[in-house]
């Protein structure tokens, strides 16, 4: 009940936000937020660390960008094509990666993503180092002109909410429960008769599809798909967003995305632009050493601590 109020308040806030904040900034946060939520589905709830999620973000971005600028597809079809392409790649990569566990899983996904990086670098249709530029936003369903940032913002908000609800639904379904069981004790899940590799693969595909959707949406917003989207730094960034916001929490990844986009924004406008990666590295180290639950994960602990403190101060009745 409490949670429902929180979510309602957030929706109202999100609907009103572009009146106060620059919509392009908000859209960036929402796109990366969806990307991080998709990643968190895999790591926070499935216990699988993919260090190559940029491959899916980039595939969504490139395929949607190419489909819209070259084939002239409408935005809704373009987004769909990018998402499906990413899901298909997720199916292949997932099937390969679930064959190894733990630390090897992370290395396999990283290496596979690097393979994709070289593919997008060398393929004739991706524009090499320049990427795809000037991708048209088009008209949604032939009615709404997305050239307006306000219209675009509400579309992005709708896409994010849809992705978020899907993740929420997945976690609370019987499938999600099995997933958590596998995360917490894989051997026991196997002995109970669950085919864990299938569960891992399915969650991998869902996560890849949503990451692709995030990339496709980002392409629409910025009208650009570039090698940055498939670079290993992007894979690291999404890990960091999730870690900062709170692994295994629902809102954590969005909060983490907000924090990191803001940090990058603040640094890049000043003379400190060159230190973005140094800052990222330091946040990584600090989070691992001191702040593992992340902002959202730490919040309940802070509240209960505060409440205890206040109760102690109150005079005995």
């Amino acid at each position, binding site marked *: 009940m409490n949670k429902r109020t929180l979510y309602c308040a957030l929706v109202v806030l999100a609907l009103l936000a572009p009146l106060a904040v620059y919509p392009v900034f908000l859209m960036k946060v929402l796109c990366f937020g969806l990307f991080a939520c998709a990643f968190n589905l895999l790591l926070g709830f499935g216990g699988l*660390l993919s*260090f190559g999620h940029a491959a899916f973000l980039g595939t969504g971005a490139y395929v949607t960008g190419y489909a819209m600028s070259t084939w002239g597809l409408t935005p809704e079809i373009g987004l769909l094509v990018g998402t499906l392409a990413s899901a298909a790649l997720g199916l292949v990569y997932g099937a*390969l*990666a679930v*064959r*190894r566990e*733990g*630390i*090897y899983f*992370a*290395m*396999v996904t*990283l*290496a*596979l993503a*690097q*393979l994709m990086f*070289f*593919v997008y670098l*060398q393929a004739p249709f991706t524009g090499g180092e320049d990427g795809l530029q000037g991708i048209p936003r088009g008209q949604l369903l032939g009615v709404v002109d997305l050239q307006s940032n306000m219209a675009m913002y509400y579309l992005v908000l709708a896409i994010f909410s849809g992705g978020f609800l899907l993740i929420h639904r997945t976690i609370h379904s019987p499938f999600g429960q099995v997933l958590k069981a596998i995360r917490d004790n894989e051997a026991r899940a196997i002995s109970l008769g669950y085919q864990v590799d299938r569960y891992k693969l399915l969650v991998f595909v869902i996560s890849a599809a949503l990451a692709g959707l995030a990339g496709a949406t980002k392409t629409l917003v910025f009208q650009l798909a570039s090698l940055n989207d498939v670079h*290993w730094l992007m894979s*690291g960034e999404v*890990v960091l967003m999730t*870690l900062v916001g709170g692994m295994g929490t629902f809102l954590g990844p969005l909060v983490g995305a907000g924090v990191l986009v803001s940090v990058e924004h603040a640094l890049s406008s000043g003379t400190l632009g*060159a*230190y*973005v*990666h*140094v*800052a*990222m*590295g*330091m*946040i*990584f*180290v600090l*989070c*691992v*050493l001191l702040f*593992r639950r992340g902002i959202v994960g730490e919040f309940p602990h802070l509240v209960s601590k505060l409440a205890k403190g206040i109760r102690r101060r109150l005079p005995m009745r």
Partner: protein
Amino acid sequence: MSIFPEINLFGLFSQLLVGMINGSFYALLSLGLAIIFGLLRIINFAQGAFYMLGAFGAWLSLQFLGLNYWWALLLVPVGVGLLGTLLERTLIRRISGEGELYSLLLTFGVALIVQGLFSKWFGVSGLPYQVPELLQGGIRLPVMYLPTYRVWILLLSLGVCLAAWLLIERTRLGSYLRAGTENPQLMKAFGINVPLIVTLTYSFGVALAGLAGVLAAPVYSVSPLMGSNILIVVFAIVVIGSMGSIGGAILTGLGMGVIEGLTKYFYPEASATVIFLVMVLVLIFKPAGLFARAA
């Protein structure tokens, strides 16, 4: 027409040599990763950063201390190893035994910091480093031109790999290390200083990366990004070979270098991706890795 096969052979052997050079670097780096993984159970994401520090160590000590290549070859790996000691004692130790996830993220963060700082200080375009006078020039064989420095890299890294293998498999210190890999608790019970062995192991694994960096400085330009690019390839290589065996890590490293060299000759477009494709094949047909020990 008759001249064609000769030219082809020339190109083939040159690429093969380049491949073996790259393979030596892969072998040194994956050997270091495997040694560290064996005892500490962590994947050292900073391995690439230490390789880069090795190359920069050589460049900096020439620029500012006037130390030539031979001094650098001797001192820089020691310096890099000491940096590793510092990192292990200050940060990695704090999270030992808390799962491989956090150590991966911690060392990734360290790698980002180091790479970011060096990019800021030295730019990313790369700095030149001269081949030492003694090793300049080369030998002209009937089938190919053999640059002396490349032969030197090959011989030295093979020697180092062999020495490391002997150290681990044939000495008392190595037996401690192997015992620690099997059962650190029992080792502690026998009164062996396990934390010290852990520190030594990490420093040694990292020093190997530093050595590879010094060796690489005259062949590639010294650049802050050199570490991260090679590291991802090395990750694919340890997936291919599995980190269970020291000899396996060395052989896979060399072998993948050769395959990469051959690809550069026969189908250059795929040379950047071929190792990843081999990894895909290995995952399909022998998912545990080529040199995995039976569970």
